[in-house]
């Protein structure tokens, strides 16, 4: 309970003392992989903050993308500030990527899917980085994204991967749409839909997490959508894993719908169109307890809605699911 109070107090102070003098600014930052990128920041009283006020949700209702710093703790979060708007210190790298990639997620949701932030109604998008020490995870906690630094062996800071950041934000979208129960097949659909979104934004391969996973080993990843078997995950209903671990294998059996997405997107030659169908299916045609079979029906329904049931897309989609044994 300490943390929200701290933030509220600080935010109130900021608004009271500096509010009217805030200006949107464009800085440059160095990411986890050492690359340079342009980031949207806010200038208040001569100091730059990792607050992005450039999105539609800001004009609509004053919502920003805010990136905070756990400073390797697990409770209090602090503002990121910089004097010259060149975010190039080592500790800033995770924040730069978390901020930049969250911006890309907002843009994709808004421009390509017509969704205003994860809730569809302009909710601010907050991220906390440097969570705990050596923490090999990143997750949506129901109200914000929380990102660990990784231990340097298994992971680099996890927000250094666009597909992972996109994946986690999409869990928030799922919460506000189909609201999949995170268990069994509906849980695996939750994971798979999040992977599909990740691979649509980070579209240079079909791997998930390759940019931050095992820095000492090139070319490996957490999962593959084109070949789930490469990481021990099933890619066909014949290989469905029945287990009680991992909420019923939600990170394992996701391989099956993942492969269906891969099949579909590659057969029509567009991840964007495939994602649009996946999103409409999620929003309009699936309930919390949807099974793989329901997902097939729902994506076909969304495809019919968007492109017609006599379209090539519709046929390709049916084939994509059939190929993984979801009939």
């Amino acid at each position: 309970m300490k943390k929200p109070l701290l933030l509220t107090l600080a935010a109130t102070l900021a608004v009271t003392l500096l509010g009217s003098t805030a200006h949107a600014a464009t800085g440059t930052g160095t990411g986890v992989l050492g690359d340079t990128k342009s980031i949207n920041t806010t200038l208040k009283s001569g100091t730059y903050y990792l607050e992005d006020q450039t999105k539609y949700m800001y004009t609509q209702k004053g919502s920003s993308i805010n990136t905070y710093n756990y400073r390797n703790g697990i409770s209090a979060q602090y503002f990121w500030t910089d004097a010259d708007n060149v975010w190039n210190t080592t500790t800033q790298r995770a924040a730069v990527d978390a901020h930049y990639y969250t911006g890309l997620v907002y843009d994709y949701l808004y421009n390509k899917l017509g969704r205003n932030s994860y809730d569809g109604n302009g909710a601010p998008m907050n991220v906390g980085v440097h969570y705990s020490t050596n923490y090999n995870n990143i997750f949506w906690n129901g109200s914000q994204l929380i990102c660990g630094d990784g231990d340097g062996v298994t992971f680099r800071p996890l927000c250094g991967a666009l597909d992972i950041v996109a994946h986690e934000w999409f869990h928030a979208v799922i919460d506000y749409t189909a609201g999949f129960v995170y268990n069994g097949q509906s849980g695996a659909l939750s994971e798979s839909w999040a992977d599909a979104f990740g691979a649509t934004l980070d579209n240079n391969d079909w791997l998930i997490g390759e940019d931050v996973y095992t820095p000492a080993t090139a070319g490996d990843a957490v999962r593959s959508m084109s070949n789930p078997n490469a990481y021990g995950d099933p890619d066909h209903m014949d290989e469905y894993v029945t287990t009680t671990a991992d909420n019923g294998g939600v990170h394992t059996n996701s391989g099956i719908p993942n492969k269906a997405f891969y099949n579909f997107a590659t057969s029509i030659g567009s991840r964007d169109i495939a994602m649009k169908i996946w999103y409409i299916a999620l929003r309009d045609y699936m309930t919390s307890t949807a099974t793989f079979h329901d997902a097939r029906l729902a994506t076909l329904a969304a495809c019919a809605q968007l492109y017609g049931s006599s379209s090539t897309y519709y046929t390709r989609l049916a084939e994509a699911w059939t190929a993984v044994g979801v009939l």
Partner: protein
Amino acid sequence: MNKKMIATLVLSSLVASAFAVNAGAAPDKQVLKDENGQVHTVVGQLGKVSGATAEERALNALDKAKGEFGFDKAAGTFKVKKSHKDENGTTHTKLDQVINGIPVFAQQMIVHETEGTVEGITSGYQALTANTDKARLNDKKAIQAALASTNTASDAAFTQAPAAELLYFPQGDQAILSYKVSFAADGETPVRYDVFVNAVDGTILNTINKVEHTAAVGTGVGVDGVTKTGLNTNLKSGTYYLEDVSKPMTGMIRTRDLRNSTFGFFIYNMTDADNHWDASTQRAGVDAHYYAGMVYDWYKNNVNRNSINDAGMSLESRVRYGSKYNNAFWDGSQMTYGDGDGVNFRAFSGALDVVAHELTHGVTEYTSGLVYQNQSGALNESWSDALGATIDSNDWLMGEDICLPGGTYTAFRSMQDPTLYGDPAHMNDYINTTDDNGGVHSNSGIPNKAFYNFATAIGSRNNAAKVWYTASRDYMTSSTNFSGARAATLQAASALYGSGSSTYTALQNAWSAVGVY
């Protein structure tokens, strides 16, 4: 199996025309069912409904399909959750199932209609009977129960304060009046839980943690000084533990340290700060852990057995048992390894075949349950050796990796030539003794040699081991003797490869060659 197949085939033929809303004339009403006969979707021409609001239209639409879904009246059975009109003008109205005005967890309907023309209904509905409509617990008690069951302190760093929502939780065809207690908390292990607490008796019906486990992968130096990569560990509070949570088990693979005591009460977790397990006191633990994972994988990948009990039980190992202890054993619930005397033997977990051997004793206990005495006892030993030589497949020796150069031994046993170590390789040499439970470690040479004969004849230790495992699981009793083992393995080979197969013939020859008929 077949039934399900037919059901899915029927489904697939319907799917082609499902939701064909943009394709000219809509088809007649179609009802899609899952393999249990549960209706999950109704599509096609459901007709026109009236109503000023989306809710009225949705309820009217549901009434049109109430026969298919099996409810009496939509009003009172469903309550609108949300509704929106999509880019094509189709309104999608999502409704929660309610009983006695209380929502049912995760049971929803979605009605799809355009200006009152109903195009389909997506259903998560099932008919449920409520156990009661009276909660006997208040929400405060429910929250206490949920926090206690998840070991969460009431003053934890909540990012989402615990809140309880009264609802029905579906369990079979029953709807159990429950509280869904939701909370998220920061901490060394962050959590985000939905805990379902029975509103009558306070029992926990279900727990879902939406923050995944933090499995880690480290490196470790084994007993022989060689570094192993891919050591599965668990990161908790910034410290790594020798706990492998990466397997699809209900439990985990865990390795702990007795620190040279024989008294199991004092057992210590093995931990490491940087996930590089390179201290000399960690070596026995690294190998016990790593090899247990390999044995787990062999059983899972080759014969689809999930751990010793085939229900995902934890594989527990204890290392550094006693002082200079020259043995390893399975005690009915865990593996224990001594350090060896340092003259003849290294730490016993340093040999993959020894680890596979001990774990297979566990598997045998849960399958045939061979009595550890006389011929059934020798079979118990032999089955463990066979799996040891299958998983550690570069020779036919047992324990060679932990025999120190310059010591008295080069290995414990040979499956290829049991006589090298004084064990019989033929029934003619069978040893009648009361020592060693009736010579279980010597007469095992006879079935060991049969396994060797068989595996080399068919050119596959893996296939031979599949036959051995299947025989133990399906065709052997606790008192099976050598001749019974021959019959059991032949039955297993027949089941797997057919009795007319060359595998079957090779197996007959393998047993005959050691004088077992």
